[in-house]
């Protein structure tokens, strides 16, 4: 008898939830783990200062977020997706096919830093050296061979006589994608043979430039950047790759290496002088504006000067803001819900 009523209760619960799914009063955000710290900070502030519920933010990765976002219109699908790269043409096509009109909001920049423990000497690297240290295949005397470098000073005598040991993110990470694209590709292009290959056979070039060595000199240290920092502290010879906000928070323990002569500082990333930085975005589903309450207000909150401006609270979280003029233009286009076209 008891079991009978329990089963009934369970079914009733199911039925209730099915109706609940049809009306949603809470914004749902998915997407990049890099944008996650910023998006959540805005969500919390938004929940506190308005009468709307605090949006739910999920960290699914840029690609996973866009997939969910583009799967359709309706309250079962997310309203906003964060991305640490621009939406791809193929993703945009999927979105359009599903009847979705997108508004793109560029929120700022994120630097990827190469850092080591404060107890050892700071490194001064170039993209070319980074490529030589981390690529699976490198050109030696004009021939593409398996990476022979085991010590940093084998690449360049100015570098320390230490074993190459780099802790970095796994292939599923957006940080890894950006690092490979910005640092490795940038370095590969510096080789004449590879630059020529890029012109003749783009695919082969990408395979070489994006291939990271698997012989133990590059260690996949998981998605958790705090863990990488702990390991760097314990091992002064190791070098780590992660987002700028973690360097910002842990400046007493680790130091960023200069890349092509530019230090990873707030100013140099904002000005574009520091070469390994990327833009961060979020995308809004216009069909949901007015259906799920608060979306327009959320965009308003995100793009206000007190949030992403020079004195905004996102700066404390490590966001590197857009230049003032870009912010103004972006605010106008995003609050006006300008549709994205590609």
């Amino acid at each position, binding site marked *: 008898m008891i079991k009978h009523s*329990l089963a009934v209760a369970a079914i009733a*619960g199911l039925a*209730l*939830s*099915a109706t609940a799914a049809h009306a949603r009063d809470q914004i749902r955000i998915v997407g990049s783990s890099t944008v996650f710290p910023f998006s959540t900070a805005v969500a*919390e502030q938004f929940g506190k200062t308005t009468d709307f519920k605090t949006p*739910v933010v999920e960290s699914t990765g840029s690609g996973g977020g866009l997939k969910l976002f583009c799967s359709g219109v309706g309250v079962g699908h997310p309203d906003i997706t964060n991305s640490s790269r621009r939406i791809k043409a193929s993703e945009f096509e999927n979105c359009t096919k599903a009847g979705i009109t997108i508004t793109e909001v560029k929120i700022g920049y994120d630097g990827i830093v190469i850092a080591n423990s404060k107890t050892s000497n700071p490194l001064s690297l170039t993209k070319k050296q980074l490529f030589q240290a981390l690529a699976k295949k490198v050109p030696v005397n004009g021939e593409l061979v398996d990476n022979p470098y085991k010590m940093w000073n084998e690449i360049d005598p100015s570098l320390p006589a230490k074993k190459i040991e780099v802790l970095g993110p796994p292939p599923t990470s957006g940080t890894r994608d950006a690092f490979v694209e910005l640092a490795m590709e940038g370095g590969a292009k510096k080789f004449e043979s590879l630059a020529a290959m890029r012109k003749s056979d783009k695919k082969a070039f990408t395979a070489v430039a994006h291939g990271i060595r698997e012989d133990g000199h590059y260690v996949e240290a998981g998605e958790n950047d705090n863990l990488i920092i702990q390991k760097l502290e314990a091992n002064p010879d190791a070098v780590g790759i992660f987002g700028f906000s973690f360097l910002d928070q*842990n400046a*007493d323990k680790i130091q960023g290496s200069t890349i092509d002569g530019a230090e990873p500082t707030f100013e140099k990333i904002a000005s574009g002088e520091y070469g390994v930085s990327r833009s961060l975005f979020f995308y809004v589903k216009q069909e949901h504006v007015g259906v799920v309450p608060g979306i327009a207000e959320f965009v308003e909150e995100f793009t206000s000067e007190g949030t992403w401006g020079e004195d905004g609270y996102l700066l404390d979280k490590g966001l590197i803001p857009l230049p003032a003029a870009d912010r103004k233009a972006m605010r106008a286009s995003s609050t006006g819900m300008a549709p994205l076209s590609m």
Partner: protein
Amino acid sequence: MTEMSASATQIQRPDLSGKRLKRRYAAEARFRLYGLIAVFAALGTLVLLLFSIISNGYTAFAQHHIALEVTFDEAEIDPTGERDPQVLRRANYQGIARSSLRNAFPEVTERRERRALTALMSGSADQTLRELVMANPDVIGTTQRVWVKASDELDSFMKGHISRDVPESDRRIKDRDIVWIDQLIAAGNIESQFNTTFFTAGDSREPEQAGIWGATVGSFLMLFVTLVLSFPIGVLSAIYLEEFAPKNRWTDLIEVNINNLAAVPSIVFGLLGLAVFLNFFGLPRSAPLVGGMVLALMTLPTIIIAARAALKAVPPSIREAALGVGASKLQAVTHHVLPLAMPGILTGTILGAAQALGETAPLLMIGMVAFIVDIPGGFTDSATALPVQIYLWADSPERAFVEKTSAAIMVLLAFLVVMNAVAVLLRKRFERRW
């Protein structure tokens, strides 16, 4: 004869039994030693784990507060003087809190400096003042000494996580901050208090405002759904399979499948939940209802296996005696066998629930790994779970989340220890041996 005995003595070998005995004892002593080493290695890692968690996390249970001399100006809070709650709620408490702190440091006038000064105070100071006024409107028009939360950075500094000795550029607390902090300490305006927020608040991006209550509620909503679904289904299938089902190839197949299901990686159940509950039935993402259903699938095999073992342990004489005095098969089971097997079944269920409490992988797929501030109020509200909260905090850049992570692990461990203790207690008190 003599020849024979002589040859017998010839083939007699030296008596080695003493030596062999010694070797056997030595082997036994060695084996015991290995066993002891294994036990101590296991204990040692456990102690190490607990030590690192507790030493990292115990500081999270305290939080530093700053005392402010707050003047609750009537003109500012309630210009109409009607004490209308709507008006009281909307007053600019942020401004009041900030100006109160600035008043304590009249020498700080430059705009950037003033910002840095107010940054020592948590962003939740306005909330503290608002609650104070809402609870007791009589404070309006008076000046009160109010303790508000300090920022996470001041808190870390006071707890010694940020050292004064490192160069200024490398710490988040600057030299001028330290001057202010020293002044506050000298005036007795900084105090460490028990961190109630940690147990009453939901998640937050500000470490000093973050709490574990939202995740705890989410975990228990989920666990409730899990038990409501998996306990009756599990026990019923166990009773049927054990007491009623004929032994044939089909029941063998079912048994093999249940045993296999118990070993399926939990992420697979998450994928199933995504495909069936979310995509097919259209249930909401991040809901404890769906989480509970997925975890129920995961704990079902555990419960079935435990319940069957408990039923099997009831001696057949009990069933036969019941049947012998004229009870039906159903009566024999429900009146005699099931009550006797219950302690074992419950133990298995609790262990299954404890396993479900610590699970994150299947929740990843159904959107429960998310930043959720509001405390869930029902089964379809967005919620997260304790282990997910630990994971999210461990991945946050803010330094102060390190201690929160360890503290949350302690809370989760406490729940698990309690559940296991209940299981042991049930077994000790009610289990019968034949």
